[in-house]
């Protein structure tokens, strides 16, 4: 009997050790930057880390680009999903990996938002952009037979009843909410922001008449836009959108808000410059390939050219963080 109990205790102990092994983070010291002169990069499999679940917009994007990169770079590329907390854990994971270009982070505009709000400890001193591939367009959409005729009507009604018109967006303190805050500041209005987990539930809430407006890109609700049950009131961009030519754009209305959900790739800051360059070149080639173009068109992501190179995107992100910080402070 005693032996049995003892062996069980040993088993538990072994279990506990396994547990602690799980908790101790892999501390592959990140600043080593294995083997300085990687002229023949890449030599082995690359990992692309996505901070959102499989099947979502960001995941589809990463996979569509990865398919082309694989072909261009001639190595296998694995897409790994680490969903949760607006991408913060995935950034943490990439930041801890060696700075050798074999772990790439597929990021979105949530990153500058997270840095501005203070939720993201891995700021611009930790990552280096490879490039921005997409720049989606944010729009405000309402039910076609609802109470808003056009954007002027919406603004007028919002001024009449401040805080009463509800606007749905995905995420809390995320990109959608910040664009809405910019719109509010520019028009002197005040809306009631309602955060949703995903665009599906949000679109359903709009169709059911439970919320008044949604802040959304054209892609997720394109079925309703085509059918005519939902209409677009405004697009936050400075150029007319193909297929939505009659939708007013923000710059025409004197509203200087053109931020779109951007999607791109980053690596650790200490990655050798020649590797960043090689990746930047490969990425620029990938986004112009026909298969990728076709995916962009099918997902309604082709409406404006999103390409920014490594240096430009870094500069753009710095600028965005400053803007977002100001908005967050003002709120």
């Amino acid at each position: 009997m005693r032996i049995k109990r003892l062996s069980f205790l040993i088993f538990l102990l072994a279990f506990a050790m396994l547990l602690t092994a799980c908790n101790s983070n892999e501390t592959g010291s990140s600043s080593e930057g294995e083997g300085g002169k990687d002229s023949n990069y890449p030599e082995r499999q690359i990992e692309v880390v996505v901070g959102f679940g499989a099947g979502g917009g960001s995941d589809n994007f990463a996979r569509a680009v990865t398919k082309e990169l694989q072909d261009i770079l001639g190595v296998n590329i694995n897409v790994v999903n680490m969903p949760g907390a607006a991408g913060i854990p995935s950034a943490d994971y990439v930041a801890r990996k060696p700075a050798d270009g074999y772990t790439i982070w597929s990021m979105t505009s949530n990153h500058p938002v997270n840095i501005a709000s203070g939720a993201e400890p891995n700021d611009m001193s930790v990552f280096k952009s490879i490039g921005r591939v997409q720049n989606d367009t944010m729009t405000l959409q309402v039910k076609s037979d609802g109470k808003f005729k056009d954007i002027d009507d919406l603004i007028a009604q919002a001024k009449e009843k401040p805080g009463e018109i509800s606007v749905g967006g995905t995420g809390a303190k995320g990109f959608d909410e910040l664009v809405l805050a910019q719109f509010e500041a520019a028009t002197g209005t005040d809306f009631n922001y309602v955060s949703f987990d995903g665009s599906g539930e949000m679109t359903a809430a709009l169709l059911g008449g439970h919320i008044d407006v949604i802040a959304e890109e054209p892609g997720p609700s394109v079925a309703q836009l085509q059918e005519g049950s939902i209409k677009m009131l405004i697009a936050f961009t400075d150029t007319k959108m193909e297929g939505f030519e009659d939708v007013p754009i923000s710059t025409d209305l004197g509203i200087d808000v053109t931020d779109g959900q951007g999607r791109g790739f980053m690596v650790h800051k200490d990655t050798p410059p020649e590797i960043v360059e090689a990746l930047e070149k490969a990425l620029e080639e990938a986004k112009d390939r026909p298969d990728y173009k076709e995916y962009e068109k099918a997902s309604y992501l082709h409406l404006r050219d999103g390409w920014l190179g490594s240096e430009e995107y870094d500069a753009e992100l710095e600028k965005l963080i400053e803007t977002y910080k100001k908005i967050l402070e003002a709120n």
Partner: protein
Amino acid sequence: MIDGLLGGLGNLLDPFNLLILIAGILLGFIGGGIPGISGTMLVIILLPVSYAMDPTAAFLLLTSIYATSVFSGSISAILFRTPGTPEAVATVFDGYPMAQKGEGGKALGVSIFSSATGGVIGTIVLIFLTPLLATFALSFAAPEYFALALMGLTVVASLSAGNLVKGFIGVAFGLFIATIGLDSMTGTPRFTFGSGQLMSGIDFIPVLIGLFAISEVLRQVQKRPRQTSKQKVRTELPSWGLMKRISNVIGRSSLLGIFIGILPGIGATTAAMLSYSEAARWSKKPEEFGTGIPEGVAAPESANNAAAMGAMVPLLSLGIPGSATTAILLGAFILHGIQPGPLMFQTQGSLVYTILIGLLFANLLILLIAKPFISVFSKILRVPYSVIGPLIVLFCIIGTFAVRNSIFDVGVMLLFGVIGYFLENAKFPLAPIVLGVVLGPIAEDQFRRAMQMFNNDFTIFFTRPISLVLLILALISVVYPLFKKWINHRKAKLRGDKNTIAS
């Protein structure tokens, strides 16, 4: 519509398409049967393969995997207390006790029969009522979601195996676990202690696998190894009498399952959990739930298959995914150049009807193929536990890791294994904890979303008819047992008084 269905049948009977359908069913069976591989994962894995096919074959493959993996998750849930897929979580509650009583074969038979029936009812509703149901689903918003989750939580009394206090502690613990991580309404970190890993919260899958599967392995290793030559499991489809006994539960649970599946953002796992609670609530002997009764297997199994079909309703008619897997299917449609939505029945009628007929077949074929499949699967039971036990732990680790590629989750899973072991030794029922973990986030998020939507006006829960009805049901289920107790108490007292007078 009849033309469309006949056309769909014609497409399906094309030898290549039929072959693809059967391949999908078998893949779904195997994937769902192996703990750690969920239907969602299989669909993702096969997505690139499907791009090379024409849309009809591609979607027959993906949807048949989707339909059948929901069923086969129950096999390891019943035999090893290890849910093969998240949807099989509630099947563990009664399936495993049945297997321990030597009724494993019967439990599997009930699972096959209920899954197939639930799936077929779900598909028939999907075929005939899609536009109607889609409109109905739209009348649900945050207040109704909250009321629904609250109603599910109030059933804790029936799930706490006779000990109400421990049941409430369990639910509270589950609800607490659900609050860890970034607050989804304001982004504020809660109980994260500065850890980046805890920010994304504790996923319910590691908790569930730990509490049930790992704790059971811990218990088994303490037993003497002699009882390895376990009973031989012979899958038997339910007898006529048993079928009649569970037909009510299956009917109710299927309808509830479809209905929950239709709601965007709530999937088959929640449907299984809620229909298990409801089956216990409406049962004449709720205290028997959790002890190994066929109703406890029939309810979640019919509901999860029905819900899987229900989740196709908003996908096909609105282009809005009702669950995680349908979100991936939506992506697949788009990459095939097809936009699901209000216009899909007109523009892609032939494809839609072929998919619907394919789903009907897939669910029917569960009845035919499951039995031989399980007989192969249950040979594993003859392997000594000293081999099986470590393999279960291994699969649990892989399965947990695969959900979010997180080693941290594996640690959480193992920790909950130890917690589950000690809780059960202390006769703590585990079902209420799972109830709290699964329904907690829905209840909290939807309550707060409702408050956001209606400017903190509490009265909306009572002025919106659907929400009011659900809340009244919840109230009744809390008050009724207490009331019944009081009545019984009075009766006994009256009788006692009479007796004293008589003597």
